[in-house]
């Protein structure tokens, strides 16, 4: 769906990371974890294109000045990296946005009996929070969070409050273990039960490492990808990635916006 939204809050939770809460229609509650929204930052033509962000959290709130009871909200967690996110970060309460979503295919929870291994790098943690919230109802959830330094590892307390067991690694060791989160992850993966599921979101090299580990230990694995997007609805073919059967002569392209952003790691070509 497409809807007008009003900013409820927009807070810098860590240097250059912002958490923005905005109004949404009740149907937003149908979003699957891993789905995303396309945000039109302002009605001017600079920036021109919408910006994609994962659904970080959903909920309802009591409206202050009206009688209409509880209203729905949507939260995104974003990092300021360029023009669009910089402009987003200057928005205030009551400013307006135009939102498209939820879009794409989200994570599939898999067997509730199996433990869930969530792997997130940097702002890749964003969609994992809403995912964890849903998963903890039925399953044991572990989170492996990585980043360059402690400021990149976000909202760990929130995850812990959900009852998620968290493992952290940073490149510089300022939080958790020093090194790659995939190393910490492999240790635990080796011990994981046969019904475990891996659910990952983060930079491509991290996802690739996770996908290879998943293959090595034969654990089902879903990854959430990023790609430059224009339409978000499968029309422009701007956001494609190579599917497992891809070769130059027999192309197999998938749209990150429509066939993803969450893919079974086995469906993609990682080389």
């Amino acid at each position, binding site marked *: *769906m*497409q809807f007008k939204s009003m900013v409820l809050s927009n807070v810098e939770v860590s240097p250059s990371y912002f958490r923005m809460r905005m109004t949404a229609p009740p149907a937003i509650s149908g979003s699957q974890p891993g789905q995303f929204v396309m945000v*039109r930052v302002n009605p001017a*033509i*600079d*920036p*021109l*294109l*919408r910006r994609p962000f994962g659904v970080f959290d959903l909920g309802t709130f009591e409206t202050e000045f009206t009688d209409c009871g509880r209203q729905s909200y949507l939260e995104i967690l974003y990092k300021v990296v360029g023009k669009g996110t910089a402009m987003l970060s200057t928005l205030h309460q009551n400013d307006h946005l*135009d939102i*498209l979503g939820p879009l794409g295919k989200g994570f599939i929870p898999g067997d509730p009996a199996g433990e869930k291994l969530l792997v997130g790098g940097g702002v890749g943690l964003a969609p994992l929070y809403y995912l964890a919230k849903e998963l903890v109802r039925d399953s044991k959830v572990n989170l492996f969070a990585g980043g360059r330094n402690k400021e990149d590892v976000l909202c760990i307390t929130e995850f812990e409050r959900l009852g998620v067991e968290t493992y952290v690694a940073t490149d510089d060791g300022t939080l958790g273990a020093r090194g790659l989160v995939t190393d910490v992850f492999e240790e635990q993966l080796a011990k994981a039960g046969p019904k475990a599921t891996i659910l990952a979101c983060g930079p491509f090299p991290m996802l690739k490492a996770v996908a290879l580990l998943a293959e090595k230990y034969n654990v089902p694995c879903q990854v959430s990808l990023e*790609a*430059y*997007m*224009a*339409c*978000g*609805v*499968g*029309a*422009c*073919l*701007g*956001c*494609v*990635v190579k599917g497992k059967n891809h070769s*130059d002569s027999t*192309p197999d*392209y998938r749209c990150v916006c*429509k066939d993803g952003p969450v893919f079974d790691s086995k469906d993609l070509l990682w080389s």
Partner: protein
Amino acid sequence: MTKPNLSVDIAGIKLRNPVMTASGTFGYGAEFAPYLDLELLGAIVTKGLSMKPKAGNPTPRIVETPGGMLNAIGLQNVGIEAFIAEKVPFLRTVTTPVIVNLYGNTLEEYGELAGRIDAIPEVAGIEVNISCPNVKQGGIVFGTDPQAAFEVVSLVRRSTTKPLIVKLSPNVTDVVVMAKACVDAGAEALSLINTLTGMAIDLQKRRPILANITGGLSGPAIKPVALRMVWQVAKVVKVPLIGIGGIMSATDALEFILAGATAVQVGTANFLDPSSAGTIATGIETWLEENGVADIRELIGALKS
């Protein structure tokens, strides 16, 4: 006041209003059905079609630029067989005319493809893309050389009885020469413009951003160039024109109509707002009402200059 007339005729295709969607920016229509009523549109133009499925270019394929975007999709498409099997059934469910945008890698392929499409009753007309700047083989030559354009359009004309629109490239010294060549070869309408060839660079990586190095520039940035070309061509050729390039609003669309376009196509705006094309169509109606114009056709080429 009675409702103004918005309907126009393009090469024999009756449009309920002059607002069409631009090829490559609206998929095969179905993708946008959740966001707007497809019955609000004058016509739907589908993604550029070729005989065989086509992989298109490696990624990145798109990049935002100031007031515009570059794309180098490379004409990825499902090919004629899958189009008939998978896309036509949905298009049958809408009464809005469907125009198929096609291209070939060779002269012969253009003819063959036009012949195949001729047999599809759901297709109201053909738009021939001789202007896509991304495909080295074919594309660029047909679109920039009047003789080559004449040949390919003549062949397509002989291969189909469907209404025939030819889409022009802006990457030429004199668009009027190209327009005349296409009309001489049997084009019943012209659509213009396709994208301007451009490039974007990632300074830190010291690389072009697009894997294809260059891409086609679309969006508001190109509107002045598109308006100028429509105006130039309208002064000279007699067939109806379809104005394309950076149309974001009913005002933009009406400007193209004043410049000489009978209809318009909405491209990049579909990405910014998937309901754009519908909003533009209803916006045109409102404008006609508010300005006491009984028939949109009064505005075609009505620019005072």
